């Protein structure tokens, strides 16, 4: 295949003034939609889809793909500034992003997120271009046993999210897993722990929970320390708020690892950017030589997950374009769009509609550049928002959380759930539990349970299926080691301590 020729074709399609305009519109609206909590990428794409029907399909998908990239960044803004995740893939960014903001480094956090997103997005597109077929194969090799093993590995990293007290970290995780049991069980068709409330049949949606735990919980803590007149000290000129070269150099490996993790997880069906960002964060903490700084404003704790979610958003296009199989809710909507434009995504798309595919790929480069430029220009503006006195900002954040929780599914039940988890978040914070561990478990729990039970239905050898297939065997063993090693180490340490006492 002639990549350069194809890419040139792509750029010739994407660089028409109208298509550039569409990309600018997409990125702008995407940042806005991502920043509003609740309205996330799936609803954003669904709402704008009808607008694109009058257009040429290539312009349409350019706008939607730019919008998707924009939402990934937009969610970061509110996560960093007010500890309220704008969309699900930004939940983990709250942990260190908001702490950086409290230290007066909001601009730096937003800047490194933009740079990480840019690099991850660009690398993602290159991978999408060069190795799509191989990636598609990799994504298909993930059946239920592999998915379960991956989720298990993800759950073992939960202590890394927890604070100083691992026991409380595990308890937080268990609360999340138990909440994950609520709702319609697709394997048996039973509605578990639903108490007859129809809204609970689909389970407890984790975004209102995250908005409550992080956003409202933080507000309640803030209300208590009401003397907090202003959040950010120091100057807010463009030089002061943007990250420096040193920051970029320092985070280059975090961005690299985040990108790789994000891409690898993003191509898998059903996993998506949220899982990718959590895994990238915990991996980063694991390999870091100063893990104690995570959760207290470590810049790598922002760079890694933000790179991961953008890489995953790009990666999600791989199964959509090459296989015609949507990997996430957002790509499912785009797929619907493609069909309405009269295109048939799937193995034949690259051959039948090269100008469409390569136009889309080229437009992803353009969207990434636009995203970097626009966010750099806008960061000083966003950071100024923190100059608003806290007594004014606080009620505004509450309104933001309420509207966000509502607009997710147009449901007042979600608003109530957000409120309840706001109180829970406040108590957890006061008592030393880990809201992040709870949210991670709530995200991974349903995926893990479903995959486990599907595996057991498929399997002729019970749990043995996990060890009989190469990928799942490696992942399962890794997960078991991740649990066993710290326990064994702790036992050895305590027996060593006890040994002299016994003598």
């Amino acid at each position, binding site marked *: 295949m002639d990549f350069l020729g194809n890419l040139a074709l792509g750029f010739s399609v994407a660089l028409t003034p109208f298509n550039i305009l569409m990309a600018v519109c997409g990125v702008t609206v995407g940042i*806005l*939609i991502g920043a*509003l909590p609740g*309205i996330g990428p799936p609803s954003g794409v669904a*709402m704008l889809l009808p607008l694109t029907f009058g257009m040429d399909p290539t312009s349409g998908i350019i706008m939607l793909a730019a919008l998707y990239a924009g939402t990934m960044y937009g969610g970061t803004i509110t996560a960093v500034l007010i500890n309220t995740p704008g969309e699900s893939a930004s939940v983990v960014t709250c942990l260190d992003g908001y702490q950086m903001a409290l230290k007066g480094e909001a601009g730096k956090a937003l800047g490194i997120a933009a740079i990480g997103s840019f690099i991850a997005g660009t690398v993602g597109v290159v991978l999408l271009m060069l190795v799509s077929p191989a990636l598609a194969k990799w994504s298909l090799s993930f059946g239920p046993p592999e998915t379960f093993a991956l989720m298990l590995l993800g759950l073992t990293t939960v202590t890394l999210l927890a604070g100083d007290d691992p*026991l*409380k970290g*595990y*308890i937080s995780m*268990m*609360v999340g*897993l*138990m909440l994950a*049991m609520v709702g319609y*069980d697709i*394997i*048996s068709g*039973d509605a*578990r*722990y639903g108490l007859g409330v129809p809204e609970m049949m689909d389970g407890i949606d984790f975004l209102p929970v995250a908005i409550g735990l992080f956003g*409202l919980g933080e*507000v*309640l803590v803030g*209300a*208590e*320390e*009401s003397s907090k007149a202003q959040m950010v000290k120091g100057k807010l000129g463009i030089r002061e708020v943007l990250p420096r070269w040193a920051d970029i150099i320092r985070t280059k490996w975090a961005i690299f690892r985040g990108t790789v993790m994000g891409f690898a997880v993003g191509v898998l069906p059903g996993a998506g950017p949220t899982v990718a960002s959590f895994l990238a964060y915990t991996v980063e903490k694991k390999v870091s030589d100063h893990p104690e700084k995570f959760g207290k404003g470590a810049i790598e704790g922002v760079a890694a997950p933000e790179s991961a979610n953008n890489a995953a958003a790009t990666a999600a296009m791989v199964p959509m374009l090459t296989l015609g199989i949507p990997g996430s809710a957002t790509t499912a909507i785009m797929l619907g769009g493609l069909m309405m434009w009269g295109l048939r995504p799937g193995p034949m798309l690259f051959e039948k509609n090269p100008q469409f595919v390569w136009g889309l790929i080229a437009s992803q480069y353009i969207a990434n550049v636009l995203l970097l430029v626009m966010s750099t220009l806008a960061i000083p503006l966003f950071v100024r928002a923190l100059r608003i*006195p806290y*007594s*004014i900002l*606080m*009620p*505004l954040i*509450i*309104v933001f959380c*309420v*509207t966000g929780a*509502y*607009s997710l599914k*147009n449901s*007042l039940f979600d*608003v*109530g759930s957000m*409120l309840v988890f*706001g*109180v829970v978040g*406040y108590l957890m914070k*006061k*008592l*030393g539990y880990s809201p992040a561990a709870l949210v991670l478990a709530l995200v991974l729990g349903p995926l893990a*349970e479903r995959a*486990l*039970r599907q595996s*057991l*239905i498929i399997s002729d050898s019970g749990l043995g299926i996990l060890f009989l297939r190469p990928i799942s065997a490696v992942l399962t063993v890794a997960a078991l080691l991740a649990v066993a090693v710290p326990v064994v180490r702790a036992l050895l340490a305590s027996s060593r301590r006890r040994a002299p006492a016994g003598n």
Partner: protein
Amino acid sequence: MRNTDRITAALLLACAVAFSAAALKYYKWWGADGPGPAFMPFWLGLVMAALALMMLVRSLREKYTGDAWLPRGEGLRHMLVVLGASAAFVALLKVTGMIFGTALFLAGLLRYLGRHRWQVCAAVALGAAGFNWLVFARWLRVPLPEGMLWIF
């Protein structure tokens, strides 16, 4: 933390046991081709119970260090006012509607807690309500709750 840890541990233990018991009582343990809907919740409840027990034992061994986790005085009052106002805001959404409710909530909280001048309160309240209306109701066409007082 000692006393609060004891109370939480005991509460969690009770919840965990109830969770497992409910799983066994209401759902099937084993399905047609594998574990049924009761399987996972039962084990989760059991693990949770074990963790809660560990915490209970640990907190019983711990020395008393003073239970100063709950705020007192001004801090507590502030927190409760914010929480109460938010709860009222949410509970009354069906009566006031989202737009009017937002304005009311903001104006009230700013005036009462922030002690801002009424001009500031009005400006912020109207601004935010207007933003909500413009962005959510007009552009994004979100069907915001309409109030009973809102005849328009």
